[in-house]
């Protein structure tokens, strides 16, 4: 009786109490999307990218736990996704063949859970060097681990070798996968937000701000570093298993350090430690390039210029002063002013490097 009650309050808190704005934002967004998808009025382009964008949200929010909260630079997050994808999808394929009657709503969550657990196990191993290394040394080790994982998966026969894993039999379209993607996004988002405001989150941030002081306060730094790597890897892995179901064939070489860097860029642009920021940045950075497909030759160029411009603008004191004055009243005026420096920087950069 008592247990049931605590669980109920837990569920209640999970859905209502914290960070209502972020939750509301994501809920409204997904409600609109779900309406569009299931009423059939969503464009092909939109429904094609929904699962991918959702997975990137999960990836960014989970990487933010490592980069923003723990303060360690990880350049191997895509490889955790890859581990989850290949183990999870392989399990799904095996289940599909062994127990043909198994309902989808059992098989997919099982695959996601399994992928997540396998990724967490790999995350544990990758987290071990983090105990001894820091900063740029750790960054290169996570990158190296990611490349090693990529090589291993590419060379393992069970995952299809260099040809990639054929996930045709378990392929599912967006309409089928969307509910699971929504659940995963909400779960990741709420857990990360909750964690931040708990004994765990505080300990993790304490390690980031001052490791020695944290240890002197009785925080077991080893444990928390490993836990962070494992939790982040778990969600990346679960997202991977989901992602794999949306393709008919998948290769490990897709998940190289470039993809890890892409996720890192989302986290940094969204703001370190900010769940809401990661979500917005993931949507903007993933959806915009898709929409700009007609300009495919230029879209990566524009992306790179915008990236440099944002970084330079953030560092410029004049821009920050400008942003400080950003109130609802002045917003239009400020926006007008903001446009000029952006274009200037872009022109200078582009002109100088051609």
């Amino acid at each position: 009786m008592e247990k049931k009650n605590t669980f109920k309050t837990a569920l209640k808190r999970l859905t209502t109490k914290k960070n209502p704005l972020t939750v509301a934002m994501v809920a409204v967004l997904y409600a609109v999307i779900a309406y569009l998808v299931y009423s059939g009025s969503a464009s092909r382009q939109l429904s094609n990218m929904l699962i991918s964008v959702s997975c990137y949200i999960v990836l960014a929010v989970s990487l933010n736990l490592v980069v923003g909260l723990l303060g360690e630079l990880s350049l191997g997050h895509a490889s955790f996704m890859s581990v989850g994808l290949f183990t999870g999808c392989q399990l799904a394929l095996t289940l599909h063949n062994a127990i043909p009657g198994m309902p989808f709503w059992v098989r997919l969550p099982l695959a996601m859970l399994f992928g997540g657990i396998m990724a967490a196990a790999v995350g544990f191993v990758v987290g071990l060097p983090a105990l001894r290394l820091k900063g740029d040394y750790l960054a290169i080790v996570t990158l190296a681990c990611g490349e090693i994982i990529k090589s291993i998966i590419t060379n393992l026969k069970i995952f299809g070798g260099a040809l990639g894993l054929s996930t045709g039999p378990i392929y599912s379209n967006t309409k089928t996968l969307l509910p699971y993607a929504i659940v995963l996004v909400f779960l990741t988002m709420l857990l990360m937000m909750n964690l931040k405001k708990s004994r765990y989150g505080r300990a993790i941030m304490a390690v980031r701000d001052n490791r020695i002081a944290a240890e002197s306060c009785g925080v077991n730094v080893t444990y928390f570093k490993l836990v962070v790597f494992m939790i982040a890897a778990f969600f990346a892995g679960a997202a991977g298993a989901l992602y794999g179901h949306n393709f008919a064939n998948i290769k490990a070489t897709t998940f190289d350090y470039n993809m890890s860097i892409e996720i890192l860029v989302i986290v940094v642009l969204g703001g370190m430690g900010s769940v809401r920021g990661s979500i917005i940045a993931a949507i903007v950075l993933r959806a915009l390039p898709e929409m700009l497909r007609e300009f495919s030759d230029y879209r990566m160029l524009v992306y790179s210029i915008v990236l440099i411009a944002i970084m330079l603008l953030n560092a410029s004191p004049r821009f920050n002063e400008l942003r400080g004055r950003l109130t609802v009243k002045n917003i239009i005026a400020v926006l007008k002013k903001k446009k000029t420096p952006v274009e200037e920087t872009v022109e200078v950069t582009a002109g100088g490097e051609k």
Partner: protein
Amino acid sequence: MNQYDKASSRLVPYPSGALVPERDLHAMPVLEARHLGIDFGGLTAVDDFSVTVGATEIAGLIGPNGAGKTTVFNLLTNVYQPTRGNIMLNGYSTAGKSTHQVSKMGIARTFQNIRLFSNMSVLDNVKVGMHNHINENLLAAAFHGFGYGKAEKAAADSAMELLDFFHLADLAKAPAGSLPYGAQRRLEIVRALASQPRLLLLDEPAAGMNPSETHELMENIRRIRDTFHIAIMLIEHDMSLVMGICEGICVLNYGRIIAKGSPEDIKSNPVVIEAYLGKQGG
């Protein structure tokens, strides 16, 4: 009647010969370090350091710059593993333990160069200090259920109480890094106290303070001992503070103890005077 009055502070020897205040004679000493030593690549930083701190003693560790005082604190908290010797905290050996385990055994410290969690709020800094006294597991942390609310409420209440004790309650929501210097020093002490230590180590708590702030600090240190009934060991260069509140004092020079005793003994000890002022002409 104050149980910590002047008379009870008189140093008397344990059977082992170590000196503690008279009132602590029948209690187990909170700290017993025996022949501690550490070498850094062939260089001996601290050698043959032995000290006993009574259960409610305010002890001082003084010595010229570079004498190895902070190194002693690092040894006591196992930030450095001692090369030689052993440490007993409340009767338990700390050999082979890591810093966070030693913290759980009842030792807390502040740092010479302030080490706050500067991006976190004042309140959260104190809550990190309570880390091992908050009953909240990963499940509770992730779902904000399973006793989360109760644990957080209790933690927040006692953290606010401690902050209030040091006049920091108004600043609870501010980021720790934004606090003025004096408040940062006080917050470090609050955070250390939050782990409910039996022994509090203060590394130059009066550094950078003016005489009136130093006086207030002195009162605070005494108040901590009188309220929480714990032992305090402090490193300090301000002799008025050391002589004013310490009961037992230990003088370190070149990594070795050159004198031990009550403030009166130390003040008149020629070896100590020589260490601080150099050999008098002739």
